[in-house]
């Protein structure tokens, strides 16, 4: 654990940029996004949260998964070459933690998705601890911490005279060779401790209902009321660091005499999209907006934990900030928590009064 000055860190970063593609928060026409940077001074250090999560660099919004060539009755398939090693720089702990969830869904759950797995192996994460959460950040409510280095290779903490630099993994140690340290021998802060001490700074704090509590409220009228104002766009899923739904289609890219070149593309898809489940024959098991919106929340808090043993939400707050009609995940969680409490209350009353009829909710 060392400290370093801003100048030294920038020098080190410029060095990294010379050796690897470095992806960092950058303002693109004023919009903070993770983009490849050409120099250390392009990094938007003050950006706590980019509009889109950095998952896009491991699981791109669209990518070629197969190059297909049809030539005179013969077909050859080839996989696109690897993008090689890259560095995600100034990634925040919530976004890094989200990659762990994507690992669970896309890699650990057999068979692995080779495209994501390969990029994941080849990426190094240089984290930047958060000092002050945004109003809608709630990582601590989902079990994260704004300064958790757990998912990083290198962790940076902003301090008054520069940065505290922690090599978290061996890969991190080797990345850090060449960094000029101002002082050495600092003890690493206990993971989460700094966040814990700042817990009060979080304006959004929610208790996330346990997965087991969700099924009982699947048919609650709440979801239809919530969906009334949902526009059915895909912002929440596309900005989300843990959403991973995709679509696959072929695209003919070129043709000549006796030869056709095809790319098989995969691109992000969203369970909010009207056509998401609509089958070729027209059958759609989820035709209502309310069903689709509900699926998003159940996926995050029931399906992903149950099927993949991972968390479906890291509390980055992006969907809250980006939703044009203020469908607020933290508010939804609070509502569900209330439903859960009400149900517990009702069940106790039912036990007390054996004659009471159970209320049957209307199925959507």
């Amino acid at each position, binding site marked *: 654990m060392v400290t370093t000055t801003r100048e030294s860190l920038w020098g080190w970063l410029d060095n990294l940029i010379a050796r690897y593609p470095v992806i960092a928060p950058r303002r693109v026409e004023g919009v903070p996004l993770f983009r490849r940077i050409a120099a250390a001074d392009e990094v938007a250090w003050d950006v706590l949260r980019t509009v889109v999560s950095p998952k896009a660099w491991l699981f791109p919004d669209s990518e070629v998964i197969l190059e297909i060539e049809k030539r005179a009755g013969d077909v050859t398939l080839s996989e696109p070459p690897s993008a090689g090693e890259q560095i995600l720089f100034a990634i925040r702990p919530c976004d890094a933690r989200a990659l762990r969830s994507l690992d669970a869904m896309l890699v650990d759950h057999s*068979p692995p*998705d080779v495209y994501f797995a390969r990029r994941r192996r080849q990426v190094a994460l240089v984290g930047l601890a958060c000092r002050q959460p945004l109003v809608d950040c709630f990582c601590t409510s989902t079990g994260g911490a704004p300064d958790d280095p757990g998912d990083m290779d290198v962790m940076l903490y902003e301090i008054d005279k520069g940065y505290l630099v922690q090599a978290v993994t061996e890969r991190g140690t080797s990345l850090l060779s060449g960094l000029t340290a101002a002082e050495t021998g600092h003890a690493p802060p206990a993971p989460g401790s700094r966040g814990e001490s700042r817990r009060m700074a979080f304006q959004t704090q929610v208790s996330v209902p346990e997965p087991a509590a969700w099924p009982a409220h699947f048919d609650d009228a709440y979801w239809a009321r919530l969906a009334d104002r949902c526009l059915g766009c895909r912002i929440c899923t596309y900005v989300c660091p843990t959403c991973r739904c995709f679509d696959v289609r072929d695209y003919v890219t070129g043709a000549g005499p006796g030869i056709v070149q095809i790319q098989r593309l995969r691109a992000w898809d969203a369970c909010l999209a009207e056509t998401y489940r609509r089958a070729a024959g027209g059958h759609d098991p989820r035709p209502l907006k309310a069903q689709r919106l509900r699926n998003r929340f159940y996926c995050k808090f029931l399906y992903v934990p149950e099927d993949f043993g991972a968390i479906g939400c890291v509390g980055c707050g992006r969907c809250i900030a980006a939703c044009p009609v203020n469908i607020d995940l933290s508010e939804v969680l609070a509502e569900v928590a209330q439903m859960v409490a009400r149900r517990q209350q009702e069940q106790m009353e039912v036990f007390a009064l054996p004659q009471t009829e159970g209320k049957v909710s209307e199925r959507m």
Partner: protein
Amino acid sequence: MTKVSNPMKPYLGTLTGVKDLASGIKLFQVVLDDATRECFDYAPGQFAFLSAFGVGEAPFGLASVPWRSEELEFAIMEVGTVTSALHRMEPGEIVGVRGPLGNCFPMDEFKGKHVVVLGGGIGGAPLRSVIQTILDRRADYGRLDILWAAREPSLLIFTDEYDEWRAAPDTALHLTVDLADGNWTGHVGLITQLLEKVSPSPENTIAIICGPPMMIKFTALTLLKLDFVPEQMIMTLEAKMKCGIGKCGRCNMGDRFVCIHGPVFTCTEVYDFLESVV
């Protein structure tokens, strides 16, 4: 060098046969390339993605059994872009095959039991592998009742094989169509009506249902009326899917994925789904 396997990369196969099965429905026979043939070890109930390169791929239930032929067989109705592209293809052309995927019918558990097979339209295609398994190991299973339905006579599939099915010992084929044409002399009505007429005994019996969601729903209700319990009722579900390996997120019914937890489910499991399949 170890072979890097990519579950999204199809095997290449050659279309060896394309046969008309019914109006707008064709049977596609595919032989995989030598190198990949042995990787493709499948069981009744499983499915695979077929690629029409340049258009895309879609999942289809395997309608064949591996011991009868090295040809993989798929019965496909022309409904969307991929199926239309497949329908335009001719023997000799190359397709991609990704699979086998999903779970299978527990054929061993059915041994010693009577089996009622209920197939509706093109949805009945995966049941052909069940029927062939039972016919080829006839002594292992009890009585076989095949209830085979279609909207109209021209949509009945595997008509060429009815004689084989009928000729098998202790096997009965019951056909029905929703709408008869002039030449139809058989039963007219929904498969549920046929089922009530045939009225199989639930005693030591397994019922297997494949078909469109509405048919599955009402057939299951009729079976309940006939005193079947959900544990005795097996079904395969279909859903739009893009990966078949639990990644693309598209085919979930609540927390169950049709692609990895299915496509074969017991009725008990389906009733436990958070979401309705219809």
